[in-house]
């Protein structure tokens, strides 16, 4: 696969067309119907949550949030393949993959509500927190890859970045280090066509993002990121290659951010209606839905029903998050070092004294 789809051949790997028809059965990944159905439901859950969050945000119940809308299949296929032993190194638009690793929706809510606990992932292992400084997380992935190889473990790293992120120096350094070290890291570029308002054509003059693999002597491939089967197949092959010591791999998953960059963004400033509509036809969930319905595995009715369930579950977790205990002053000091140094204890003490003084002051003032 990596030979045929060597990025210099300018091919994008695709398995399913826009109508959910399999283009060539031989291209299909090995996957059971049950697994596909589960993946579909999980992606539907992610989408439901995602759309609902945007609503919460409009209601002022959550701060800035970066929607996944339209990109669910990339995370969804990753969720289908990633194992407990594997590492997930997200950027910030990989909800589905994170949930599959045991991160809870509630935690994600907490983060976007403004609690660090939203990064703690109490029931998940081997997931790094969402990374805000673009592309910086890729180096962590390369380093984890080193540890895996060093300890001869059978683990993999799935690491994400956006198209905009490919311009950062850290992107270059990460894939280059990983290439020299030959570590089992699958780098996945979610090319959703924009970095905020900046189109990918203004990020780079290269023919594709996948072709950047050649700069590091690693395998690269461009894949239709809205095609669940294509994405899964590429990940399966990447996994195999990594297991054979042929990693790292650089995957460019072509997709489209159907929503805004974040809830503070207005994409109509920089995108045309036509463009948005043309991508609408390639919606990743619609395509898989059609496939499943054609196969008699799914129906609109089931969809309706499950979405109702999902909505309730999302709401339940949201309300749990909203009832998270108050943020205590000591928490801002507590996790800074393995043992809190005296300096920080003094600062905390000073803050507490201030709070005592303040409540007295306010009490006095209100007495008057």
């Amino acid at each position, binding site marked *: 696969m990596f030979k045929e789809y060597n990025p210099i051949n300018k091919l994008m790997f695709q398995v399913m067309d826009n109508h959910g028809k399999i283009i060539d059965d031989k291209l299909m990944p090995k996957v059971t119907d049950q697994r596909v159905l589960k993946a579909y439901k999980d992606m539907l859950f992610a989408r439901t949550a995602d759309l609902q969050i945007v609503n919460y945000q409009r209601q002022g119940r959550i*701060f*800035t949030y970066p929607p996944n809308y339209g990109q669910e299949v990339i995370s969804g296929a990753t969720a289908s393949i990633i194992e407990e032993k594997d590492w997930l190194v997200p950027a910030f638009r990989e909800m589905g993959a994170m949930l599959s690793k045991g991160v809870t929706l509630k935690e994600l809510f907490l*983060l976007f*509500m*403004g*609690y*660090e606990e*939203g990064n703690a992932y109490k029931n998940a292992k081997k997931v790094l927190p969402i990374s*805000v*400084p*673009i592309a910086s997380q890729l180096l962590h992935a390369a380093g984890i890859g080193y540890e895996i190889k060093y300890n001869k473990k059978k683990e993999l790293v799935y690491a994400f970045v956006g198209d*905009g*992120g490919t*311009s*950062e*120096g*850290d992107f270059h350094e990460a894939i280059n280090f990983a290439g020299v070290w030959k570590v089992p890291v699958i780098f996945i570029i979610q090319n959703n066509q924009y*970095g*905020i*308002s*900046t189109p990918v054509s*203004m*990020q*780079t003059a290269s023919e594709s993002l996948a072709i950047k693999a050649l700069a590091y002597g690693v395998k690269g491939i461009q894949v239709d990121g809205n095609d669940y089967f294509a994405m899964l197949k590429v990940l399966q092959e990447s996994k195999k290659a990594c297991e054979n010591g042929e990693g790292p791999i650089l995957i460019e998953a072509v997709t489209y951010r159907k929503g805004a960059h974040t809830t*503070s*963004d207005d994409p109509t*400033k*920089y995108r045309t209606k036509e463009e948005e509509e043309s991508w609408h036809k390639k919606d990743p969930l619609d395509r898989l839905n059609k496939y499943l319905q054609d196969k008699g595995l799914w129906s609109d009715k089931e969809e309706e029903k499950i979405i109702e369930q999902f909505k309730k579950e999302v709401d339940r977790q949201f309300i749990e998050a909203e009832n998270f205990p108050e*943020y205590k*002053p000591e*928490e*801002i*000091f507590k996790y*800074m070092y393995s043992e809190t140094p005296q*300096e*920080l204890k003094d*600062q*905390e003490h000073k*803050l507490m004294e*201030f709070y005592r*003084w*303040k409540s007295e*002051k306010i009490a006095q003032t209100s007495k008057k």
Partner: protein
Amino acid sequence: MKIMNMVGAINDALDIKLNEDKNVVVFGEDVGVEGGVFRVTEGLQKKYGVDRVFDSPLAESGIVGTAIGMAIAGLRPVVEMQFCGFIYPAMNQIISHASRMRNRSRGQLETPMVIRMPYGGGINALEHHSESMEAMFGHIPGLKVIAPSTPHDAKGMLIAAIESNDTILYMEPKRIYRAIKQEVKTGKFTIELGKANVVTPGNDITVVTFGAMVREVQKAMVMAKEMGISVELIDLRSIYPIDRETIRNSIKKTGRILTVTEGPMSFGLGAEISQIAIEEAFLYLEAPPARVSGYDVIVPLPKGEHHYMQDAYKILYEIERNVKY
């Protein structure tokens, strides 16, 4: 005169300089069509074209590094770092080149450029969007670091910065981007860089601050006044170089000094101002020069940010302690 908020005033300053000087170019992430994530550069690309106001690839070292080249070649780039937490990839270009090229080449080369950057907390933002690291930048030899606290200052200081032949880090207090409206002179004017502004004269204690904290101090001053404490408020405007003279004069009058900043405490601006106070007026001091600042911790996410931030009460608390000393 025109009523403006800070965003408008900065936009106006850019507009004036773009219009007046063909060497001025404005670029950075999403400053073009989008007009910047805070709309500071709104409308400028339309007015001046994509050659003069444009989006760059997403790479801060790239933005500052190419600006250095442009500046050496004769342009006057004004670049934007999208948020304060995203300037760090550019540190090498700032420290190793932008701040040094003149000294390195014994004055043969210059890098007249402005790095604009929204800084500071209080806007319920994600991690990395709320930092105030002025002390880190003030410690870089060859760099000038300035920050306005009003729309008027924002305009006059930015025009002066663009006209300066030095490399200038222009820190924009995003918390008050739209919070303060003010009459601002239309047309071009400049404010001399490196000079502090005595916002309010007073007698009992000097409070030194800058940017968004000016407003917080003013709130504290209202309460202090009720307690009979007269505060002299100094808006530093320039973090480097610091206007020693204004500080000296003030402290000789009040005998007490407090610095209010948002950044981490240790190695912060507060210590530097205190040091200046003891160097310049030790024998006038009636109490130890003090600092209200952030703590030596990461700026907490929004739900915990109030524990970290300096509000009127925290400032009043220190004023009171200091005056009672």
